[in-house]
């Protein structure tokens, strides 16, 4: 129960952070990538702010703690190799991000804010996520095991 409440509060704080940061305004995201128009560097401040908080806590916790407070072990990505699907998948994601102005977190929280655009985008996004995961599950069941390392290993994020 406490894990569920904790995850809920974590998602809630994350969502408020996204809104204050301006991530839930597609025009600001587009503005960050619009180097030939009126460039809005705000997104860089969001990412630097988040990384500067996250990095020291991550290093401290993962290096010195036996385990997380409510879990028996840290569940961290293990892969180190840079492969084609990492680059291709991320490239495809970038096209959608630049086209719609929403990435996954802002889309979910903007649906809560009753944005019609976020709802349309978010439903299509869930179809994409679900279709990919279903495809991978079918492939696994046909080959009798994980289709590749990625399906078996914890994904990056």
């Amino acid at each position, binding site marked *: 129960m406490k894990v569920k409440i904790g995850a809920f509060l974590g998602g809630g704080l994350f969502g408020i952070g996204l809104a204050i940061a301006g991530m839930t305004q597609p025009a600001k995201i587009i503005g960050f990538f619009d180097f030939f128009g009126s460039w809005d560097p705000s997104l860089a401040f969001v990412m630097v702010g988040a990384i500067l908080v996250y990095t020291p806590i991550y290093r401290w916790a993962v290096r010195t703690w036996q385990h997380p407070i409510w879990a028996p072990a840290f569940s961290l990505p293990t892969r180190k190799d840079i492969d084609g699907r*990492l680059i291709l998948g991320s490239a495809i994601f970038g096209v959608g991000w630049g086209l719609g102005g929403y990435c996954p977190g802002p889309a979910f929280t903007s649906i809560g804010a009753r944005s019609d655009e976020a709802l349309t985008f978010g439903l299509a996004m869930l179809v994409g996520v679900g279709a990919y995961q279903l495809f991978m599950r079918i492939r696994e069941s046909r080959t009798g095991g994980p289709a590749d390392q990625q399906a078996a290993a914890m994904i990056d994020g």
Partner: protein
Amino acid sequence: MESFTPIASTIGGVLIGIAAAGLLMFHGRIAGISGIAGGIFRREAGDISWRVMFLVGLFAAGVVWSFFFPQDYVVGIERSTAALIIAGLTVGIGTQLGSGCTSGHGVCGIGRLSKRSTVATISFMITAAMTVFVVNEVLGGSI
């Protein structure tokens, strides 16, 4: 640069960092939204409820925050329904194929000094910028 918000964006980023660090410290998990959502569809026993609750928290934040600050959710760009659907599909498929999004790769991954996430972030930043260039400079800003 008329809409540049360095202070608010830094504060928002810090809150995102605290939330992501909290998920790591308490639950030992990476706060990547696309990874959290994708895991729901993999249907592993005992691994569903925290994911759903995190996304419900995100949704609830939008419900409550937009009541007081509706201006934080203004779209501000012209996008047709078809463009939004194509954008959603490519974000959904791309983040699963590429194992992460802005939060998982861009914040947590770079924060972990992961080479994979750094490469992924560079990749999606480049194609996002290329897409915005085409939409704004070639298509006139609406699609």
